[in-house]
């Protein structure tokens, strides 16, 4: 199915947020996630289903002012 990850279209096999992170090689990284602008806790990723058209944000620590 097609979803958006960090603003870009992706065709993915994953049907949950946790599976998506593994599919995109984020599984061992420190990231924060949101689906359709709603925060999803790390503990809830396994139980968070994805559907076509979802907008997923995967964010990492970066420099800031």
């Amino acid at each position, binding site marked *: 199915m097609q979803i958006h990850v960090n603003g870009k279209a992706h065709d993915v096999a994953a049907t949950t947020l946790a599976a998506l992170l593994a599919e995109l090689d984020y599984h061992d*990284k420190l990231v*924060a*996630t949101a689906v359709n*602008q709603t925060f999803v806790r790390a503990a809830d990723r396994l139980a968070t289903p994805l559907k076509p058209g979802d907008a997923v944000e995967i*964010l*990492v*620590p*970066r420099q*800031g002012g």
Partner: protein
Amino acid sequence: MRDVPFKVYDTVLRSRLLLGTAQYPSPAVLAAAVKASGAEVVTVSLRREAGANRAGESFWTLIRELGVRVLPNTAGCRSVKEAVTTAEMAREVFATDWIKLEVIGDDDLLQPDVFGLVEAAEILVRAGFKVFPYTTEDLRVAERLIGAGCEVLMPWGAPIGSGRGLNNVFGLQALRKNFPTTPLIIDAGIGTPAHAAAAMELGYDAILLNTAVAKAGDPVTMARAFALGIEAGRLAYSADPILPRDMAEPSTPQIGRAFSDLPKRA
């Protein structure tokens, strides 16, 4: 006069300089600048990772090795929803309930959207965050933010990254006078240590800056200069400066001056 400790949300900080971590020429210079500044708090953000280089991971390792407290921001957020979601994401990743809350209302001046700011602050305080709101010097907005549960305010000196210093000294003085016990941190617009010292002499509690250090020709030396300027300004404030006068007043005693019996002018 004995100075009072600088305390935000039950945390006492020795340094009155909070430093941003963006725009440095290299990670090594960033680390050296943080050390030279003496800052105990640095600001950080959450961003999409570009490519597979794991830059975020190495950055976070560097910050942890510095042993400083982090203040995550919601920089660039333009709505309450974006800011609240970003804050929630930051709390999990950075394992802190501190959040520098930015809700930007204007693309050219990066002026806070104070209406969205108050709304987001109310939501985040209810959710257990310790909110550091990036605001203006507006008194009514300050009152609303404090009413929402913010225990510190961060008014701008000037637009972010502008280096203009204190654009509205009168307004900042009024804010200080109206909220004498609330920790007030000047956030944004500072260009030189003189600007920072001037803010501290007004009685502001601390300075948060980034660009003025990171983009200086020698960021490490500038970090040290800011630390000294802020300390000098705070000492001056606590030492009760004299008030300006319109007329001169001789500092050397007039009594006993030679020729004092002669007429003043021929």
